[in-house]
């Protein structure tokens, strides 16, 4: 790739998707294209596959210029688009048949190849099931099988792990490793998950249409050597500590991780800055760096050049406070939801206290969205008791809904309205009138730094700003309870940090927060969480407790994902035994 640029016209504006991108992808390796949503990953994939043309620059695949001879290139590569390119009303076998025909695989080779692929994917029993009826992980594997019908020389995978549970994700990586290392295939895949980058042989970091770094993932972590720490201070809540550390000079990054704070320092800064801050009983320990640290460092480095002062967050109040005595705000007992004979939520119970951040974790289809919607009063429960602030929202008077804030998946706001119009609408919907309304709108524009975007059509906002606006709308009426549905999916790590900073501040102020997520590492932000699978609660507790439960000598530092996978595996093993 050399100097690739691609622009799109959107109305009267020109959007640059890729700006002067140059890179090499080497054969026989797994190369990861890493970046947040909107960074230009899909555009680059499509350019390589020859279904888009570059405005400038050129791409050669195995020495062939893609724009000059796309058909030859397409004969050598396989490409799995984001939604896997499956025909949902065709069965697994029929999908395979179609791609076998398209790739001109001789009839005589088919039976053998199908067996091999289905065996590799572990989906032989489902060969006659409709693709639309498969789980996300299964679809992804079928999509992969279809692209592998005739082994390509280069395999392009566009965000293959979005919406897929951690177990399937791990299996997919196993398959990719097998393809590259056993069969000598080249794989180029894109992902928004930073933890996946570490599994690649090489990575290409894409941010805001530009390549900001490339090389083996170890290169990024090596640069961070000696800069990562875990900090604990028993006198303070983790969030207070995080807020305090973040304010220090020389700190690149500080995020809540379990009951501690993970700290990354600027290059050349020594750990004594923390001691200098005079936080009582502080315990600071070095830990090995991870890929995300390197990415944040790169982004921060860019931003540091652009602006210096960070803004907006309230100053940390270092007053110790425990939430144990706080009253229960959300109370769920024996909650069940059935759709026909399918049980989406199966007899679950939990409660959330005031000022707590509570997480609902699980893969797509685990029942967390259904639970969430029942809690908000959007869906009637089949059975069981559920109360928010002492009331069932489904039957409570409309005024009761005025106490909660709701931020939907995909930050759904009125895309055709401007930022100010959206804010004004939601202010009115929450019965704010007159001076109070003006005041809150001004607060939202100021607090969330949306003032410069006041008259921008919200559809055109960058994703991070959409997220801010959605949160602003949900907080318009200063709710006591905040519901967040997949609040950070797709946004870049910096926006994610900023988002959590705000949520932390709210929780400290006594707002109860219920959040669903399928990002395992996001669970670290929660005070307590439940993990759901197939409508049931698999485990409940703090993230530390969950991780501790699976800690072994072989795995002294398990991640949240490890804990999740261990739970699922144990659950399935238990079912198989029964």
């Amino acid at each position, binding site marked *: 790739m050399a100097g690739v640029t691609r622009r799109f016209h959107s109305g009267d504006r020109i959007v640059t998707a890729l700006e002067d991108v140059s890179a090499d992808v080497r054969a026989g390796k797994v190369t990861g294209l890493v970046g947040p949503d909107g960074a230009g990953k899909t555009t680059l994939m*499509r350019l390589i*596959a*020859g*279904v*888009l*043309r570059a405005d400038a620059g050129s791409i050669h695949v195995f020495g062939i210029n893609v724009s000059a001879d*796309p*058909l030859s290139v*397409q*004969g050598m*590569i*396989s*490409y*799995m*688009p*984001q*939604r*896997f*390119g*499956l*025909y*949902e*009303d*065709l069965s697994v076998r*029929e999908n395979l*048949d*179609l*791609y*076998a*025909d*398209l*790739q*001109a695989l001789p009839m005589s080779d088919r039976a053998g190849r199908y067996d091999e692929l289905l065996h590799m994917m572990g989906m032989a029993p489902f060969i006659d099931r*409709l693709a639309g009826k498969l789980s996300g992980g299964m679809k992804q594997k079928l999509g992969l099988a*279809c692209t592998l019908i005739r082994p390509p020389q280069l395999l*392009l995978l566009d965000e293959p792990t979005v919406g897929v549970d951690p177990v399937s994700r791990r299996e997919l990586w196993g398959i990719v490793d097998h393809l590259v290392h056993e069969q000598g295939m080249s794989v180029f895949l894109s992902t928004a998950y930073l933890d996946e980058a570490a599994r690649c042989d090489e990575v290409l970091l894409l941010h805001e249409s530009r390549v900001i770094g490339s090389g083996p993932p170890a290169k990024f972590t090596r640069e961070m050597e000696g800069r990562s720490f875990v900090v604990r201070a028993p006198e303070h809540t983790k969030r207070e500590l995080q807020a305090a550390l973040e304010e220090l000079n020389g700190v690149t990054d500080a995020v809540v991780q379990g009951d501690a704070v993970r700290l990354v320092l600027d290059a050349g800064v020594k750990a004594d800055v923390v001691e200098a801050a005079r936080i009582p009983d502080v315990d600071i320990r070095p830990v090995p760096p991870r890929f995300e640290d390197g990415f944040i460092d790169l982004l921060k480095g860019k931003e540091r050049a652009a602006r210096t002062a960070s803004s907006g967050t309230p100053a940390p109040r270092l007053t110790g406070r425990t939430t144990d005595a706080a009253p229960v705000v959300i109370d769920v007992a024996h909650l069940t939801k059935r759709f026909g004979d399918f049980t989406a939520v199966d007899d679950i119970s939990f409660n959330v206290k005031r000022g707590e951040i509570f997480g609902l974790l699980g893969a797509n289809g685990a029942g967390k969205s259904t639970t969430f919607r029942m809690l908000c009063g959007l869906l009637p429960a089949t059975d069981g008791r559920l109360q928010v602030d002492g009331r069932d929202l489904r039957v409570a008077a409309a005024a009761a809904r005025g106490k909660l804030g709701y931020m939907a998946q995909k930050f759904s706001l009125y895309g055709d309205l401007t930022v100010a119009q959206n804010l004004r609408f939601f202010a009115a919907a929450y019965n704010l009138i007159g001076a109070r309304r003006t005041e809150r709108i001004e607060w939202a524009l100021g607090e969330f730094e949306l003032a410069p975007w006041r008259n921008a059509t919200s559809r055109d906002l960058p994703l991070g700003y959409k997220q801010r606006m959605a949160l602003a709308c949900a907080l318009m009426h200063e709710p006591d309870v905040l519901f967040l549905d997949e609040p950070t999916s797709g946004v870049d790590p910096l926006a994610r940090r900023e988002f959590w900073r705000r949520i932390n501040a709210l929780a400290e102020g006594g707002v109860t927060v219920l959040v669903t997520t399928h990002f395992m590492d996001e669970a670290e932000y929660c005070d307590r969480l439940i993990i759901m699978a197939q409508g049931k609660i698999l485990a409940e507790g703090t993230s530390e407790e969950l991780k501790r439960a699976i800690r072994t000598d072989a795995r002294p530092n398990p991640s949240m994902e490890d804990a999740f996978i261990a739970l699922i595996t144990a659950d399935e093993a238990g079912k198989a035994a029964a």
Partner: protein
Amino acid sequence: MKGSMMRLRGLIRKEWLQILRDPSSIAIAFVLPAILLLLFGYGVSLDARHVALGLVTENPGAATASFTAQFQRSPYFAPRTFLTEKAARHALAQEKIAGFIWLRGDFTRALDAGKTPDIGLFLNGIDANNARIVEGYVQQSWANWIAARAAANGIPDTSPLTVQPRIWFNPAVSSRDYLVPGLIAVIMTLTGALLTALVVAREWERGTMEALMVTRVTMNEIMLSKLIPYFMLGLGGMAVTVLIAVFLFDVPLVGSIPMLLLASALFMLASLGMGLLISAVAKNQFVAGQIAIIAAFLPAFILSGFVFDISSMPAAIRVITHAVAARYFVAILQTLFLAGTVRSVLLPNLLALLAMAAFFLSAARLVARKRLD
């Protein structure tokens, strides 16, 4: 070459499976046509039967009775008697009756005196077409009455001219016989343009088109794989509607069936070409559906001569109708069904259809690119 055949076969098989499994395809290809056919077959009729006609006889007698009696007997009228002209006018305003006949008090006297009394016929002119048809019926009854009365009294017929009407091809003047064949054109536009535009747009929306494009498949193969199944589906739908027309609605089919097949095939190609062209321009179902309805369905309905007479339209609109493929097909259908295999009608219309099919298909091929931008 072998690879190409194999790809095409794979794509066509996929298309068939999708058609069979997708309820919305079936709905547009079979349910919608059936609803339209039944609606038109049973619901729409321009033939006035049992017209509610008011009769006001101010001074009843033998002469008025002989005049009004024929309305009582006629299948065309369902007469209602009113005592005063005012009451009848009121009923007319309320649209309870379509018109009324007013025989004044001096009718019998004038008739007996050999003077020519007036028979008042008042019609609700709001529905002009219906009013005209009712007027025609009443006129006919009046002429019959005069002839009968003259013959009975031994007076020579006073009307020097006699009209002998001959209505060819549709002697019963049943509107169903001309609406139903024309409707076939509308229905085939639905499967051809609307359904095709929607299914291609759906592939774009679901991202499967992207997956197809990165394989070795060529644009010709993709287009053929859409053309062939929907061509067959369209002809299937057309066969079903022809059967319903002939056996359920008793519409005669006088012309040759091979000719019908040829014309339908050409029209189907034109229609499919239009659908493919629309889908190449509009890549989501919402927009594709809108364009298909405005550019294909509506003209087929209104500008094809299926209900409204083309030669009576203003000149500018008449020019536009030449760009509507359904216009030629409707002409062929009405002729084949009711008049027979008339070469002088078929030939120019078939040629026009051929030209339109060629135009739309090549335009669709030109616009379609194997790229996403």
